[in-house]
């Protein structure tokens, strides 16, 4: 085998596209069984080729060097005495991965030949240039579907709903804000009442100084303070002044703020 290989070793320097291309060339040239590659010989020839390239100052693509390393690695594994020759599962052929890759590559190399032959044949078919045919542009029927129409109706209603519901959410937020304001008004009133003085509604909630909303809220706060028993209310005359007196007979001493209903 060795002699046959060395005979074939006179490599002609072709422009190999990649390491597989070169390996294939060597395999075919030496008529090697791809399933049983003599790694020692192939590696030697492969490296010979690389050094020939070097001598000619050709650029050696990194892929060629990676393959050289792979071949040398396989070679070293083959040369190492098997530590556990009894265990069959461990005796995986180190060439296996390379063989699988080469077989895969070979498959496409063969297709490439089929394509080349077909290309050669069909390049003999000649086509004709198109005649000048004037374009007639016709406005075609509308392409519409009842289902799309229906879907659009549902979509637009959905959008409308979302928008409307968004408006109602905003309103709710505003009202919640007012509730906080009611709490603060109650707190304010309780502060005044602590001083134990009789309060005059029109003095606290002055129309000139405050907005209607604030006065209305103030009125609600007044009623709230009375409701939780912190004050007594009195209006001597209809539409007359409202007086607020601190309740001296409170039932308990708990913080009045906790009595305000938390909304």
């Amino acid at each position, binding site marked *: 085998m060795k002699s046959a290989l060395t005979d074939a070793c006179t490599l002609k320097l072709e422009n190999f596209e990649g390491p597989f291309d070169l390996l294939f060339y060597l395999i075919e040239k030496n008529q090697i069984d791809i399933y049983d590659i003599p790694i020692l010989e192939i590696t030697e020839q492969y490296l010979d080729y690389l050094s020939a390239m070097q001598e000619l100052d050709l650029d050696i693509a990194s892929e060629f060097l990676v393959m050289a390393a792979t071949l040398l690695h396989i070679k070293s594994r083959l040369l190492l005495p098997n530590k556990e020759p009894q265990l069959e599962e461990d005796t995986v052929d180190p060439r296996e991965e390379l063989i699988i890759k080469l077989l895969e590559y070979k498959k496409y190399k063969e297709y490439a030949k089929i394509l080349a032959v077909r290309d050669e044949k069909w390049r003999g078919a000649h086509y004709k240039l198109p005649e000048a045919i004037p*374009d007639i*542009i016709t406005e075609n029927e*509308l392409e519409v579907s009842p289902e799309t*129409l229906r879907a659009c*109706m549902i*979509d637009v209603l959905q959008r*409308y709903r979302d928008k409307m*519901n968004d408006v109602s959410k905003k309103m709710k937020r505003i009202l919640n804000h007012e509730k906080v304001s009611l709490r603060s008004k109650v707190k304010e009133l309780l502060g005044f009442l602590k001083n134990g003085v009789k309060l005059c509604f029109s003095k606290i909630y002055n129309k000139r100084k405050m907005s209607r909303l604030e006065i209305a809220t103030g009125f609600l706060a007044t009623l709230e303070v009375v409701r939780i028993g912190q004050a007594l209310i009195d209006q001597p005359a209809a539409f007359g002044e409202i007086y607020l007196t601190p309740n001296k007979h409170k039932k308990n001493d708990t913080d009045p703020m906790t009595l305000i209903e938390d909304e």
Partner: protein
Amino acid sequence: MSSINDTEVIIEALLFASGDPVSLERIAEIIGHDKKTTKVIMTNLIYKYQNTSRGIMLREIDNAYQLCTKPELDEYVQQLGTVRRKQGLTPQAYETLSIVAYNQPVTRAYIEQIRGVNSDGVLLKLVERNLIEEVGRDDTPGKPKLYATTEEFLRVFGFSSLKELPPLEMNEIPEVYENVPLD
């Protein structure tokens, strides 16, 4: 190749590939006959094209030959140039059309309220395409125009009447909170 048939085959290929007229001399040269024989072959061939089921014919023009389609087939050939423009509706047009279709007759204001955007342009387009039309005026301040779908609308959607509009199921109609809840 030497038989008459083979020669004819070659000539057809030559003329097809050339597209332009090919001179008698050139044909004679390629098929390897003298001009006189070639002329006879060509004359026979013209006759053959004319009298068999061919879509193409052979013309002699000034001692040159050219293939072309038979003039009586022109109406078919012209159709190759027909570019059908398949037209669809824009999403905006579809949306507006659906509001008109399902709620007709409607005012522009109604459409705009639902869509939330100005719908002047899209309404105009739908009127231009004859999918909707004015059907009168609403009896409200300003007397706004009322729009409804047309017969063309029914035709393009393939409806025989408006009853064939795909129904909107109740559960598909999104709920709108009419009143703002005051809690």
